[in-house]
């Protein structure tokens, strides 16, 4: 039975419309995966000696922070790990036993990179432990427990996938716990370390995570099996709709028409809502850079400056016009002024960038220079990157499934790694400019140069729009054909 599923999966992969770009990105992602694997590997081997050098007991220290490790893992999973989207509906009436369908879907998640990525850390770490004379059996049992915990996270992600807002809740938990620990109010690790240490020292304790894993698999399995109906797990949720006129936008003419539509697009679709959440997450990205002055070269600050205000730009702009992919044929038969259409998306990006810049004023805490960097980043985003993403988007032919609220089995993970990857080149130019400026004279010259690039870009807006218009027109038939195929 299973080989039939694998056959289907293979066909789905090789025959998807965007296979060519998919493959390119897959290769890129492979490199990224290898990179992370190497990093983890180095971490696994290096961690032990590094910690020991700091006069700490390595295993105890690792055990201390494991709680955060697993919490972060869960957060990353909630954000990035996709639940395998099998087209389950057509299978329901075919002679497959339901458990087979569910086992396969769950089994597929177990093979995910998100699971075996951890092996790159835990395997070398365990090997080093044994080599350093730790009790072999204890190390193996501890390792087994870690694997179970990783898979517990895997299934937790699946079960929790159906709930909204969890991402925010978990981030909140981590921030609160971390904050309490930092200010010595309450230290959760005092309690969890006992457990993780126990996994090593107490021979039978590893049974706990293993039985938890088995239990969780059973729960997940039953949850899916019981919801394998068109009107429950596989159903479409119906929201209560409210007609909104947004008449105040009428004063903007055609621009207003499209703005009205785009605002509804963002408000009413899960996929687009995720981009808004992402832009909020991006706001805090700078903390990584500005906090550790020692760790990061100042040139990298401009990198952060661009990311802080550019979250929406990167996650939304990249997919113009794919946001309208599901009704692209309609757009192409209506009398659509491309400029109005583009302007509307552009204005959304600009408004989001400005709001992000204002919200990020808390960076003033790190000094004027830091906030200035962010403002300059915003100028560059508005002037150059907003055009670049729209330009890149004109070639994007990935249809977007806006109705991602398909229930338990739907593709719910809107944000993906691909988006991030495409965004990277847009950061290199300001980085270069800033670097030239700051090596020639001072960081301020660097900032000025980036800001000027932004202003020049802004002045070229009409030219870029005309160019994008032309691309839209020449790519029209290809785009229609690609959007017709649902990925």
């Amino acid at each position, binding site marked *: 039975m299973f080989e039939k599923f694998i056959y289907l999966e293979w066909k789905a992969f090789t025959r998807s419309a965007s296979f060519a770009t998919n493959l390119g990105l897959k290769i890129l992602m492979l490199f990224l995966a290898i990179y992370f694997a190497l990093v983890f590997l180095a971490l696994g081997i290096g961690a032990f000696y590094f910690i020991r050098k700091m006069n700490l007991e390595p295993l105890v220290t690792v055990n201390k922070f494991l709680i955060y490790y697993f919490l972060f893992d869960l957060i990353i999973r909630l954000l990035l790990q996709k639940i395998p989207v099998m087209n389950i509906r057509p299978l329901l009436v075919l002679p497959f036993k339901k458990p087979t369908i569910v086992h396969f879907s769950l089994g597929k998640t177990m093979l995910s990179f998100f699971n075996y990525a951890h092996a790159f850390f835990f395997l070398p770490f365990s090997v080093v432990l044994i080599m350093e004379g730790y009790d072999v059996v204890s190390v193996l049992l501890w390792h087994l427990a870690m694997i179970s915990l990783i898979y517990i996270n895997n299934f937790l992600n699946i079960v929790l996938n159906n709930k909204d807002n969890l991402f925010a809740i978990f981030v909140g938990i981590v921030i609160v716990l971390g904050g309490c620990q930092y200010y010595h109010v309450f230290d959760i690790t005092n309690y969890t370390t006992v457990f993780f240490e126990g996994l090593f020292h107490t021979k039978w304790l590893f049974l706990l995570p293993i039985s938890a894993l088995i239990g969780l698999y059973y729960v997940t399995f039953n949850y899916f099996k019981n919801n394998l109906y068109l009107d429950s797990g596989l159903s479409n949720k119906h929201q209560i*709709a409210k007609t909104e006129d947004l008449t105040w936008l009428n004063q903007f003419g055609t621009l207003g028409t499209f703005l009205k539509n785009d605002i*509804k697009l963002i408000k009413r679709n899960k996929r687009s809502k995720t981009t808004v959440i992402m832009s909020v997450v991006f706001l805090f990205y700078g903390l990584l850079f500005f906090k550790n002055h020692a760790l990061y070269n100042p040139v990298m600050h401009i990198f952060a400056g661009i990311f802080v205000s550019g979250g929406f730009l990167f996650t939304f702009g990249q997919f113009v016009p794919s946001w309208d992919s599901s009704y692209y044929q309609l757009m192409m*038969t*209506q*009398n659509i002024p491309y400029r109005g259409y583009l302007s509307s998306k552009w204005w959304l990006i600009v408004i989001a960038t400005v709001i992000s810049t204002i919200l990020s004023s808390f960076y003033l805490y790190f000094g004027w220079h830091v906030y200035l960097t962010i403002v300059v980043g915003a100028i560059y985003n508005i002037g150059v990157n907003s055009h670049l993403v729209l330009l890149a988007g004109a070639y994007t032919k990935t249809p977007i499934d*806006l*109705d991602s609220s398909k229930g338990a089995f739907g593709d719910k993970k809107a944000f993906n790694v691909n988006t991030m990857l495409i965004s990277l080149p847009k950061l290199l130019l300001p980085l270069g400019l800033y670097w030239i400026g700051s090596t020639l004279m001072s960081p301020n010259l660097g900032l000025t140069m980036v800001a000027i690039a932004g202003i020049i870009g802004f002045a070229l807006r009409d030219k870029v729009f005309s160019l994008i218009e032309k691309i839209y027109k020449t790519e029209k038939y290809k785009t229609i054909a690609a959007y017709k195929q649902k990925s």
Partner: protein
Amino acid sequence: MIQVNDLSKTYNGTTVLKIKNLEIPKGQSFGLVGNNGAGKTTFFSLLLDLIQPSTGHIINNEIQVNSSENWKPFTASFLDESFLIGYLTPEEYFYFIGDLRGQNKADIDALLANHEEFFNGEILKNKKYLRDLSKGNQKKVGIIATLIGNPEVVILDEPFANLDPTTVNRLKKIIKELAENPDVTVLVSSHDLLHTVEVCDRIVALNKGEVVKDIQTSAETLQELELFFAV
């Protein structure tokens, strides 16, 4: 109104549509019938410049559709659900199309009031997004949206499919009214010979991409068509 010259569409060596010459005069109600794969949707897609012709071209009101976009303001169409914007309510969708066609809210409201019977109370003020409507109700929205802004050419692909019997009759009435207007050219495709004969002045049958029948509707038309499609 619509002039087809040497039109053909080929996919990887297979010709799916080949029409040497076809003229649809202004005001005509034109029915396109044929089996699956006969090329009906392909023809409409070409007419709407959604796909590129392999040879030849279509002229819509003196505008060649694949080289200029000026046919868009007076041409309205509904081919399938991909013409609907799923996250809008029906009202918002009508207003959106209205905005694009230069109609204000009052114009749209008047039009909608006119077709309240057609909607059968299931469309307007129903607190549902288009994506959550049934196929039939979605179709109703799409069809009425083509009437916005007094288009001169109305193109409907399989409008009768998925509709309940009462709505089919109401739709026939709407199409007949449109056809009576000498300024409006209506193009309808269907599998259903009876419905098509009832609403169209002229019927063209396609088979494997070629025109095999071209008849002005008369009392004998239905019989003639049924004979042709008989097994």
